[in-house]
Structures are given as C-alpha cells and as structure tokens.
C-alpha cells in the first residue's frame, strides 16, 4: 500500500480501533484518536516532504503545462469494464488541503477532549468523516472522488443530530439534504463528463485530455460548480451553514467549516474549471456576481448576529465567498488565492469554532450580549480569539491577508473572457468586505472579551487547559506561519494551478475584449 493510501487508511484504522474499544473507556478512546491523528500529522509531514522532493524539480516545467501532474500515484483497476479505478495522487493543491485537514482533525480531537457522552461513537464517526475528506483530496478518479465525497458528508448528520445543540435534528437534516442536493448535481455532471468524453474513464487526468463540446460545457459547468458550491456555501445555497454550524458540536463545526466546506472550492477548481474551461468562461461572470454577493452578504449578515456560532458561520459564508470568487476569477492569482483562502479559512475557522466551544463549555452561553469582559478571566482564549479575528479581517502577518490579496488582485486583473469593467466593479464591491469584516469582528469580540466582566459568575471561570492550549496554539501558529512565510504554501500550490490556467488559455476561442 502506498503512502497516500496510508493517509486515507490511518484515520479509518483509528476509527476501527475506537470502535473495538469498550465504550466505558472514554480516556482510551480519546488517546487512541489522538495518537492516530497525531501519527497522521507526522505522516502528512513526511508525505509533504516526499511530494516536495518530487514536485520541486518540475515546478518550472509546469509553467507551460496544460495537464496536471500527479505524484505518488497509486492506480489499481476497480470496476474495470466501466473504467473505474482506485486512483490516488497528490499535487500541490491537494497536498495543501491534506495538510490542512490533518491539522484540523488533530486539533479537533484535542478540542473534543471534554466529550463524554457516547464518546466512542463520536470519535469513530469523526474519524470516518475525516477518512472521507482525505479520500476526496487524494483521489483523482471521479467515481472514487464522489464516493469519498459522500462518505465525508454523511456522518455529519449523526454527529450534529446526536451531539449537537439547539434545533439539532432540523439543522442536521437541512445540512445533509442540501449537501446531498449538491451532490445530486455532481452526479449528473460527472456522468456527463464520463460519457461525453467517450473515453470510458473517470480518471480526472485522462478526462482533461478530452475536448468537451461547448454545448455540453454550457450546462455541465454550472451543474458541477453549483454542486460543489453548495458545500462551499455559494449564495443562495449557503443556508445550511449557519444552522448547521450553530447546532454542531465543537469538533464537528471545526471540521465542517474548516475542511468540508473546502471540498466545495477544491472541487470547483479541480473538476469544474479544470475540465470545463469553456463553460468556465461562459459562466465565470455569473459566479463572480454570486460570490460577490456571498462575500458582502455574509459579512453584513454577521454584524447583527447574537449567537457566536451564527456569527462565525456568517463570517464563513463571507470567507468561503472569497474562495469561489477566486476560482471564478479564472486567473492564476484568483485561483491561487482561492486555494490559499481555503487553507487560511480552514485554519481560522477551525480556531474560531474550537474557541467558541471552549468558551461555551465555560460560560454555558454562546449569546454575545450575555458575555463581557472574558479577556480578564480567560486571557489565552481571548488572545487566540483576537488573533483569529485579525486573521479573518485579513491582517497581514496572518494567512488571511495572503489569500485575500491574491483574490482581490485576481478579481481586479480579470481575465480575457469577461468584461473587465464589470469584474473590477465586482472586485471593488467585494473589497468593501474588509471594512465590514473589521466592523463585525471587532464589535463581536469586543463585546465578548473586553470591557468590564458583566456576570459575576464569570470570575470563577478558568483559562484554557493544556489540551486546549495545544489545540489552539497549533492553529494560531499555523495561521502565523503561513502569514509570515506565505512562500512556503505558494511554492507548494502554484505549479499545480498553472495547468488549470493554461488550459483556460489554450482552449477554444478567446471571446473579444482586452
């Protein structure tokens, strides 16, 4: 079994180990999960190193490449007569996403240290979910991809339904159904790709060699883009997100907002734009408009929220808007920004949800107006929260800035297929979110953490425990490392974005303008 298979299998084995642990031994279960995810983190680091060894020498040649280059490929025929393969591979984009996921699940396990109720099922489901996520990021056969995609989505229902709070069944059901509706569109698109290509293969790298007729691309692109967009909280298909996140338990929110929503942007980039460049050109502007709405709408929506989780969820809607905005910009900077934003937002929002969970565990409320002055009693959490907030409003030095600046430049620079004035206008509108974000982030956090302590009970509360410190510390460090040394990540992903861009430029006729 290859390295990449191990990346998928390790969490699954961990899940099995959890399942076969007696339910009473919650401490064992947690340690097993932690060791499993910790080992995964090490494995990911090793894989990154291996990947980098293989990919670095080729970075220059990728500048003009039109086909993506997979590394550490594992290819086993599966349903042979239908051209379905077990095909794993990794390129810069997926590598960065794997790193993200590995970090989030590790910290997520730490952040769930206080889960006692049905802990066994909780950790098992969490690990199964993550197995699916790794599968999605590493598989390059659309069938396999889709398979993992749904494996990643479905455990969410139980995780929210059982361990959630508030209207959990409603939220869980809404989330699951909306995401599944998205995947219904994906099925249509994928099957279309499979048949229209006439290549009898689901191999993404092979499909890229096919030329799809424009009439097909015209409908398949939006189907696939929206299908992924639902998971990426594309307006107006985002409403599962606030309720879902608000109801979900901490680690689930972390994983969901931190990683699962990234599958949307990832898929949109990887499948929709890469395979259907003509469709992308036709629909780019349409999705630019939607995502611009996303960006502003999410941030305005966050201003008036009272519940910290809703607050963060709306902010996620806004930030995920950047991801899809970058993708829809259809140029190097935009797409690079999209991937960076995926990474950045993943870490950031993971941090947020972890912190909210920790604060909630102490105050037993998530309502912003009921809190105040918590910085006095829990300075660690407050500082982490502020760092997360600063990252989310795009403060340089944290990863958010790197991503957003790419996205803005990408949007502003436009592409040869879309009216430049409109794109620039949209970009200008989108940039306004940096102010709105500052407004809601600072307002919300000031209310919660600053000012005098509002409730005398709060004085008795404690600051973060060791596990919580490790968990949040890792996330904060990641934000800062990427923010201070963005070239680490950019070098990783840039060469993998080039083929997507080059394909756009190579295919079809350039439609006027510029």
């Amino acid at each position: 079994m290859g390295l990449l298979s191990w990346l998928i299998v390790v969490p699954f084995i961990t899940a099995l180990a959890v399942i076969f642990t007696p339910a009473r031994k919650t401490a064992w279960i947690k340690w097993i999960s932690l060791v499993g995810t910790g080992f995964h983190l090490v494995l990911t680091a090793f894989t990154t190193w291996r990947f980098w060894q293989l990919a670095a020498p080729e970075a220059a040649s990728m500048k003009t490449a039109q086909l993506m280059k997979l590394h550490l490929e594992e290819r086993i025929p599966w349903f042979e007569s239908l051209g379905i393969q077990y095909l794993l591979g990794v390129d810069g984009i997926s590598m960065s996403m794997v790193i993200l996921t590995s970090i989030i699940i590790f910290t997520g396990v730490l952040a769930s240290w206080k889960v006692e109720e049905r802990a066994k099922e909780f950790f098992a489901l969490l690990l199964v979910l993550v197995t699916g996520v790794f599968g999605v990021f590493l598989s390059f056969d659309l069938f396999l991809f889709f398979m993992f995609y749904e494996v990643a989505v479905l455990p969410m229902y139980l995780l929210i339904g059982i361990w959630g709070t508030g209207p959990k069944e409603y939220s869980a059901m809404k989330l699951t159904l909306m995401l599944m509706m998205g995947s219904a569109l994906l099925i249509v698109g994928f099957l279309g790709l499979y048949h229209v290509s006439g290549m009898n293969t689901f191999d993404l790298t092979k499909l890229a060699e096919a030329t799809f007729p424009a009439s097909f691309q015209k409908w398949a692109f939006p189907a696939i883009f929206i299908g992924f967009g639902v998971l990426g909280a594309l307006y107006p298909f985002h409403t599962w997100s606030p309720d879902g996140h608000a109801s979900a338990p901490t680690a689930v929110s972390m994983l969901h907002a931190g990683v699962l929503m990234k599958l949307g942007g990832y898929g949109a980039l990887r499948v929709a734009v890469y395979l259907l460049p003509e469709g992308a050109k036709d629909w780019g502007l349409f999705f630019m408009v939607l995502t611009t709405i996303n960006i502003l709408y999410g941030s305005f929506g966050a201003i008036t929220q009272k519940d910290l989780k809703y607050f963060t969820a709306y902010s996620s809607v806004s930030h995920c808007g950047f991801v899809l905005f970058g993708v829809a910009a259809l140029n190097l900077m935009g797409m690079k920004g999209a991937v960076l934003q995926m990474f950045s937002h993943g870490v950031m929002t993971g941090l947020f949800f972890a912190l909210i969970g920790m604060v909630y565990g102490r105050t037993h409320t998530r309502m912003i107006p009921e809190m105040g002055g918590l910085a006095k009693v829990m300075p660690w959490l407050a500082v982490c929260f502020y760092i997360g907030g600063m990252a989310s409003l795009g403060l340089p030095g944290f990863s958010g800035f790197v991503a957003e600046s790419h996205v803005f430049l990408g949007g502003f620079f436009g592409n040869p297929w879309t009216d430049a004035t409109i794109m620039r206008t949209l970009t200008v509108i989108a940039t306004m979110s940096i102010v709105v974000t500052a407004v809601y982030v600072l307002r919300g956090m000031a209310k919660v953490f600053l000012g005098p302590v509002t409730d005398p009970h709060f004085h008795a509360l404690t600051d973060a425990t060791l596990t919580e410190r490790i968990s949040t510390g890792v996330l904060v460090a990641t934000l800062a490392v990427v923010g201070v040394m963005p070239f680490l990540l950019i070098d990783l992903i840039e060469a993998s974005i080039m083929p997507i861009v080059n394909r756009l430029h190579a295919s079809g006729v350039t439609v006027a303008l510029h």
Partner: protein
Amino acid sequence: MEHELGFALRNAWLILAIPFFSFLVVGLFIRPRAPKLAGIVATLAVFASAGFAYALAVEYLSLGGHDGWKTIVPWSFEWLRFQEHLAVHIGVIVDPISVLLMVVVTTVSSLVHLYSLGYMHGEAGFGRYFTWLNLFTFSMLALVTAPNILQMYVAWELVGASSFCLIGYYFEKPSAVEASKKAFIVTRFADLGFLLGVLILGYFGYQIASEAGGSAQAFDFLFLTNPEVMGKFSALGAGLFGIPLLTLALLLVYMGGAGKSAMFPLHIWLPDAMEGPTPVSALIHAATMVVAGVYLVARLFPLFATSGDALLVVAYIGAFTSVFAAVIACTQDDIKRVLAYSTLSQLGYMMFALGVASFEHPLGYTASMFHLFTHAFFKALLFLGAGSVIHAVHSNEIWKMGGLKAKMPVTHATFAIATLAIAGIWPFAGFFSKDEILAAALGSGHTGIFTLGLMVAGLTAFYMSRIYFVTFWGKAKTEHASHAHESPWIMLIPLVILAVLSIGAGFVPFGEFVRFGAAHGEAHGINPMIAAAGTLAGVLGIGFAWLLYRDGLAERSGVIARALGGGYRLIRNKFYFDELYLFVTHKIIFRLVAAPIAWFDRHVVDGGVNLSGWSARVFGSAVSYLQTGQVQTYGSWFVGGAVLLLFSLWMLRA
C-alpha cells in the same frame, strides 16, 4: 553600488529583525513569566535598533549626495509572488526620507519605551504593553523602509493593529474599547481606498512592467516613480467619472494616507485614540504612525506631482484640516485631546506643504518632511509632558490641574520649550519648519493656503499656550493637583532629551538631505518677511492666551465663549462629527443594511429552503391522499395508467 557598503547598509535587515525578534521573544517567552524583564528587554531592543538606525543614517549620508541622494535597496527577498512582475519583496529601502523616518521612529520609540518603564510601572499588563510597543516599532520601521507599496500596505495594517491593541490597552474600560474599535475601523475604511489604489496601480503597473519585461516589479516604488513609467501612467487617460486613472489611483491611495494621518473627514478616531496610555499617544498618535500618511504621499510624491490634481486635493484637505482641528483644539478641556487636535492640525500642515509642492516648486516637499521631523520631537515631548502631568494629577482635565510650575519643574520647563517650539518661536525647532512650509506655500503661489497657514500658526500658539497656562500657572484646582510631585527620573530623561531635540532640530541643515530633485537655491535661508509674519502670529496667539488664561482660570474666556453662543457649542462638540458617524453606522448601516440582510437570509433564503421541504411534504401528502383504500379507484388508476402508457408510447416514440 560601485563601492563597498558599510556594515549597517549591508545588514540593513537588522533594522526590521531586531524589533521583530524582540517582539516574538518578549511576547511569547518573557512576558508570561517576567513582565518586568519584558519591559527592559523590549526597551533595550529598541535602543539597539535606534543605534543601528543612526549607524545606517551615518553610513548613508557618508555616501554623499551632491547630485541628489541615491535610493538604494540594500536588502530584500521575495516574500509573496502573485505572478510575474507582481512579486512583493520584503526589503529595506534607503533614501533620505526613509533614513529620516527610521531615525525619528527609533529615537522617539526608544525614548517612549524608556519613559514607559516609569509611566506604566505597576500596571497589570506591563509585559503586554511592551510587547505591543515592540510590535508597533517593528511595523512602523517596516512601513518606512518599505521598498514597495505592498510592503507598505502590510506594515500599514500592522501599525493599525498594534495601534488598536495599544489604544485598547485598558481593555476593561469601555471607552478605551470603543476608541480602539473606532480607530481600527475608521482607518480600515481608509485602507480600503489604499487597497483599491494599490490594485489600480498594480494592475496598470503590471501592464507597463510586463511590456518592459526584465525583472521589473509593478509594486516597487523605484518602478512606480521611474519617470518613464510615470509618463505611461499619466498617458492612461480617464478612468471613472472622467477622472484620469492615475489621479483616481492616487486619490484612493491618499484616502489610506488620510485615514492614518486623520485628515478631515476621517479624523474622528484620533482624538478618541487618546484613551490609550499617554506614552502610546506620544509615540503612535503624535510622532510616528500618524505621519505615515504624510510619508506615503511623500514616498509617491513624483507620481502625485505627475498627476497634479491629486496633489491639489492633498493640499486643500490638509489646509482645511489644519484650520478645522486648530479651531476645535481651542475649546477642548482634555489635555490629551487638545494635543490630539493639535496633531491633526500639524498633520494638515505637513500635508498641505506636500500639496503645494510640485516639480517646479519642490520646496514644500522638503518643508513637509522637515516639519514631520521637528514635530515628532516636540509633539512627543508635549505628550510625554502631559503624561507626566497626568501621572501626577490623575486626571486629563486641564481644569483639574493648575499651579504645577513649581511642583514639577522639569516637566514644566520641557513642556514650555515644546509649546514654544510648536508655536513657532525662534530658535525652537517649529519655527524653522513652519517658516519653510509657509514659504513653500507662498512660493508656489498658493496665497490662500499661505494665509490659512498663518492663521493656524496663530491658533496653534493660542491653544497650546492655553493649556500651558491652565496646567502650570495659577493655583492648584484640585486635591490631586496640589499634592502633585515630579515624575521619576526615568520619565524625565526622555523629556529632557526631547527638549534638547526640540530646540536643536531646527538647526539641522535639512534641505541638504531631504529635497526633491537636485535643485538648491530656494531650499536655504530664511525669508525674513515670512519669518516675521509667522513669528508675529505665534506671539499674538501666545499673548492672547496669556491675557485670557494667565491665572489658570476659565472666567475670562467664558465670556467669549458665551458671546459666541451656538458657534462655540458647535466647535466644542467637534462640529458633531462623531454623532454623524454614529448615525451613519448604527442607524443606516446596521439597521438599514445589516439587519435586513440577516432577516432576509433567515426568512427569504432560508425560507425558500424550508419552503421546498414543506412543498415536498405537501406533495407527499397529496400523493398518499390518493391512497384511499378503495380498490376500485386503484383499478381506475390502473386502467387510466394503461391509457396514458398507450399514448406516451404512441406519441412520444422517437
């Protein structure tokens, strides 16, 4: 470089690295365990960078500059690569103004650090304070040494953030929290303009750079201010609303500068920012961060001068702000707020000095930088002096002070020096720089602005003397004030050093070092007419203040205030700008935009989702309603279905 660079220039990265690593070390490792030590280490680090900055300045100046000073970037590395010709190189630019700012920033910063060791003594967040102060110093240095506009933007945001942290240092105090938020959000709003300006410059710069090929980087200042490039920029033609693209971009960039430098109408955050500890006000909100806007315009001055119109806007807004703020300053009672408005006014001064400059009359450029230089010292001194007073009296209210002349001799003396300096009295530093600005305004033919400048000079002298008299003269007006005593030596040393600088700074042959173009001539010497007019205005102001406030009481001035009636109230309430902003943000944006969007999302968009769920149930119920249990009804459906099948087979066959 033909000849070998010196140690400091070769290792220019140290100017950033020292405060940065000290920030990390202090913040992460020392602060939680030994806050005291944190303060000391932080201070030492800043002193080290100050020493390094001097060394660098000396080396740079020794490179000579008879035919204009060279701009060099002795150290840089690729930090963020957007795409070709669009990479951000973190680095250090060395030219006269960056050297100037490095010196000013490190000097004031190290003095403020030192001062703070005394001032903040015993505060709960002592270590935290120094951490942020260090971060600020790093950010500010990164700003002034930025070789490209994006590094400047990055540092710009970072100074904003550290300023935010420092204003909100007393985070349990609601007003401080509000002020910090306000400062951040207002400047953030301005930064939006900056960002858009960067986008436009970057976009067209990229076009030009990729035409040029080579290693040209669109964001580099050296690229942007290259005459050839500037020519191409000005040939871009009209952008939005018929405004030439270059002007548009520069105005947007200027918006960022205006925000940070608190130009009207983005000035509202600065007075509130006085909620921070006083040394912070001295460092950030007087001497360094707030001049970033001026620095930005100066940095891009060739572009601004190419555009012309943009520069005019800078001039008029600067002039207006200087008068506007000076008028308000006359009516405020909080010593720090008066200083804050005074800062606004002086920043306006610097801005319009830049604004009146042009390729033909570049004196304003020199004058502006000169004033920046001198102002940094005397304004920092004023703030630190005020801090010393506040430390003693435990109040910011000037009417709760009084009679401190004898009790706090050193503070009093240095404060008096600073007051004279800002009032523009020879031989104090302010005299020279102000004189040069007025000369520049007149020389470039902006008579109106010159007149306003003169007026502001008078007003400045008046309100500064006002607080000086009320604070130090007359009798102690409160218990605290009567028991006040001099601050510890660690706070006085910086005062004295700054006082010396406030006197001496004016004698620096500034025009030798900082000038635009190689032109000499008008840079030198003092025009006696202008000097006389300026001094007269200053003396008049002081005299008028002496008449009203020499006994430290409000009675005489109250008469005038009452006579002015509504006008006075209007000024005293800062022309109700805060209220206007509150109305716009809370009433309009929150109530009319944000709340409806949240409602719309919950009820319309989400409602749509729920509606689809609901209609699925309704459809399901409808279908199962057909399930009546009547077997013959089922049979009828069956037969009907067969008919339907027949028709669909027959009609729909391909």
